[in-house]
């Protein structure tokens, strides 16, 4: 998966600013409604960024003019808005960071049309649909067990440090 583009650009053009905004709005709303959508890889990658940012904004749960404006623009339907606040925010409350997953589909070869689209599936984590055949890391290998243990130790140390700071 590409991490970043040259010259610090991180966003694709997707046919112009206005078109891009409208397209991403449609995709974000579809993702919130259906929790799993199939698009081209580039569009899925862009919507990932926007859905992460939108859920971060919704998580902060302030009655700002900013949050109202942004959520009012991006979660178009009322049903989408309620779903965002009542379903997705509690689901991802302790989840920090990436809330979605992309899985690549086999390339679309059609003999007559020279259209080798790279299709992908974008889904929100924790959705009720049957799981995608995505290769997740094996949690039972020795390395992954040690890494998980180290993570827990570090978290515990951080918690005790914060407790001692707050008490003193």
């Amino acid at each position: 998966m590409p991490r970043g583009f040259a010259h610090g650009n991180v966003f694709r053009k997707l046919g112009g600013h206005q078109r891009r905004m409208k397209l991403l709005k449609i995709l974000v709303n579809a993702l919130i409604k259906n929790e799993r959508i199939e698009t081209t890889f580039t569009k899925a990658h862009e919507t990932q960024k926007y859905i992460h940012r939108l859920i971060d904004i919704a998580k902060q749960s302030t009655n700002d003019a900013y949050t109202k404006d942004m959520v009012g623009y991006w979660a178009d339907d009322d049903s989408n808005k309620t779903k965002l606040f009542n379903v997705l925010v509690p689901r991802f409350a302790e989840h920090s960071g990436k809330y979605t997953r992309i899985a690549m589909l086999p390339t679309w070869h059609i003999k007559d049309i020279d259209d080798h689209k790279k299709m992908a599936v974008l889904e929100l984590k924790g959705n009720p649909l049957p799981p995608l055949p995505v290769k997740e890391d094996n949690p039972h290998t020795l390395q992954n067990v040690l890494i998980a243990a180290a993570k827990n130790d570090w978290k515990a140390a951080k918690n005790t440090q914060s407790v001692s700071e707050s008490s003193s």
Partner: protein
Amino acid sequence: MNDYSREQLIIFSFSDAWVFLNRYCCIIMSTRILTPAVRCLNYHGTETVNIISMRCRNVLKRFSSSFVQPKRPTLKSDGSKTSFVPGREDPKLFSSEYIPPLVRPEWHRNKLKYRLERMDCLRRRNVVNIPEFYPGSILAVTVYDPHAAGQKSRFVGRCLYRDGFGLGCKFLLRNIVEGEGIEIVYQLYSPVMLKYEVLRLEKWLDTDLRYLRDADPDYCTISFDMPAEAPLPPTEELPVFKGKVKMKKFELWNFNYHKAWPRPYNAYLEEYFVEEDFMEQKVMQEKRGHGHLQYDICKHYDTRQMKEEITKEMKLNQKRIEAVDKKIS
């Protein structure tokens, strides 16, 4: 109309005035009905008349208009508030140049560099008092100039914008001196800057006021002898200026200010277009302007959570600097 001055009024004998008052007292107090005999007593069309004689004064008291002396203006701070207003804390602990710049992708951000630079800013602030000011406020700045008399030079101007991070923070002062518009960009933390005086602290809704170049020149003509206005104590909220500036004709603009984003609030920009041009400009704005940035959440820079961390860090830095200075001395 005969406008008699006060000195001329005194010439009339008070007995005459008494006679006039007795007959026309009810008429004096209404400025609508004015006979020529009474007009001479009417001092510049006001209802009350400054007459020295006590007799006349007593007569007038009965019929004088209900003049209520205005209340003495009270000081803005009554000492009940002791903490700073949230927007106006100590600029040493938090200022707009402490917020790190937005650099994408994320791993290009060097947090150590930002922390060190903020520490250096604090060191400089301990030497020179850099007051809080916003784009729109009027500043006077004394700068070291080896070729000037007394090795100093002073410039007064209105701050149009303030940009940059850390030690590279710059601000632009504009003034119209003898009909010539002069703009100077100063670096806030340069060792050449000797003294800052905020003559008038204003805060405008816009942070980029460069459209004042093509606006009414009154906003940027500031005399070098302007006295400093009374400083607002930091326990009071600073009122934000929400008025609108009148621009020159559209043909004289050097820049398409109406296409900028965020769209300037403090200026009458769209009012200068004829209806047909207005629709055209709107379409162009949507196509080639930056209106899409309003809802582009990924391109927004969310700095709301940074304030607390930065103030914490700067407090620690103050203690560190004190400790190091103690050790050295």
